[in-house]
């Protein structure tokens, strides 16, 4: 069984993140990392592979990313977290890809690997946070999509996930091959020990170009992007801030402050009529 995990290299969300004059994320800050939500995807894949091996089968987990030189760090981290092999699509023409362009590149990379039984992604990238990629990838790979999984199980060639939506909780199942995206509730990613880190150094990272994948550069990257950031500005800092220590009256003062600014209505709400 082969499980492919698509991951992304993003600026560390704890760091100062910024957009450049071109409206693109500044990615050369040097504090990039494997997208934290993709750690859940790798963990889910590694656990499923372990279960398959325990049941006497073969299993391989391959992490795949597309991005500049630094993006290799993301797949290296995936290897430390237990993946067996990695693919890095490295091509200048990938720069500036929107979610659809990225999905196009990753779909080509997954196809290039041959048969995948399961494709796993995180629920979102913590840079753009569009959450468009999993569904786009499933569509391009013509796979059933089981997204936003808070748990994943494989049995008899069927994948079953549980997912929590705003208005409902669902259990979905589909025959393999399939695509699953997992939320940060799906598992607790392992922390690689020294042994795992050393072992990861020996695992292969295959570097591929768009030409290797047969992807027309005009369809991806900034050339193929369907949207363009025309303006980007840091949010101005808040002014007139109040910070007090409760002297026993803070609740009363806060109530007055809220009413003065009309932040809560001065008469109780009567309920909105559609």
């Amino acid at each position: 069984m082969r499980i492919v995990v698509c991951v992304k290299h993003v600026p560390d969300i704890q760091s100062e993140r910024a957009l450049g004059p071109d409206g693109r994320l500044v990615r050369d800050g040097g504090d990039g990392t494997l997208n934290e939500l993709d750690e859940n995807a790798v963990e889910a894949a590694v656990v499923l592979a372990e279960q398959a091996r325990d049941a006497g089968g073969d299993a391989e987990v391959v992490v795949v990313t597309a991005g500049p030189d630094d993006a290799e760090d993301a797949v290296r981290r995936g290897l430390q977290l237990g993946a067996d092999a990695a693919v890095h699509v490295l091509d200048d023409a990938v720069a500036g890809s929107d979610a659809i362009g990225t999905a196009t590149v990753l779909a080509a990379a997954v196809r290039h690997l041959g048969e995948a039984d399961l494709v796993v992604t995180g629920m979102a990238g913590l840079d753009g946070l569009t959450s468009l990629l999993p569904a786009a990838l499933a569509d391009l790979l013509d796979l059933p999509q089981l997204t936003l999984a808070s748990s994943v199980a494989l049995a008899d060639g069927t994948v079953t996930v549980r997912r929590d939506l705003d208005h409902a909780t669902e259990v979905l199942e589909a025959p393999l091959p399939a695509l699953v995206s997992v939320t940060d509730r799906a598992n607790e990613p392992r922390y690689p020990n020294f042994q795992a880190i050393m072992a990861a150094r020996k695992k292969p990272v295959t570097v591929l170009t768009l030409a290797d994948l047969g992807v027309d550069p005009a369809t991806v990257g900034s050339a193929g992007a369907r949207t363009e950031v025309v303006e980007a500005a840091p949010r101005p800092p808040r002014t007139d801030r109040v910070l007090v220590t409760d002297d026993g009256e803070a609740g009363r003062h806060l109530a007055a402050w809220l009413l003065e600014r009309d932040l809560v209505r001065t008469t109780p709400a009567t309920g909105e009529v559609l």
Partner: protein
Amino acid sequence: MATVLVLLDHADTGALRGSVLELATAARELAGPGGAVHGVWVGDEPLDPALPVLGRHGVSVVHAVTTGDADPLLTPVLAEAVADVVRAAGATVLLALSTFENKEAAARVALATGAGVVTDAAAVERDAAGRVVAAKTVLAGTWTTRCAVLTEVAVVLLKAGAVVSSHVEDEAPLAPEVRPRSVAVTDRATRVRVVERTAQAPSDRPDLSSADVVVVGGRGTGGDFGPLEALADEVGAAVGATRVATDEGWIGHEAQIGQTGVTVSPRLYLGFGVSGAVHHRGGMQASGTVVAVNEDPEAPIFEIADYGVVGDLFQVVPQLTEELRRLRRG
């Protein structure tokens, strides 16, 4: 002339989801004089109670789409139905609420129609060249951007509460024309089987994602949301929580605000015992006014609070609720 299509999210009962009328309002602006606003209603639920309301908000045609045996709550099915209507109506813009389900559908509609997509938009308009341009905050609310759609068809997902909904003026309420449509979705959209679906119990409180005022509890509540709920009921607020509070089981998962949960942008955010970890800030930093009460003066939420109180929430919240009740009711 431009036809702007609005995805009419609705409950099983046929009730429109709260912010759909905001989409219709934004759609009227985008359609402009001579343009038209159409709705797409996918599913078998009754359309009747929604129709006059949609009419008053400027929707002139509703495409009522059935998908045969295919479950329209599965997003690939929804996407095929919506893409079919985009083509049939000749729509150049599709507006939908920015939910996880709609993002999935939008990705597939984009592939089917060649559209560019902007998610989590806080506003949408046309620029001088007639392009659809959406505003959004990114990087946990620290940057604002304007994003132009370069393709012939634009898909924009608007955050709940982004637009103040308004009726059509100086016109008698119009009844939208209903165009029934049956879409035969492909096998590839129906390979997922729904084994189980449990709807959330409806709440009397406003919907968290679109609420005007949000009361939020974090680790500092120690699991006691009672005082927060009393405050929420007093001011008509939704109740939300941090990841810690939902992980501890103090409140349902659907209440989680953050990058992986619900994104809120209320006029007023009231956070109690919330430290303001970066994940949480990513889901609330676009809020209008931020009030925070926390015992820890070093809590990061104070960096973004307009009004911060260092103190015990179990002292401050009941006093706040009582004082609001006194001042408002005399």
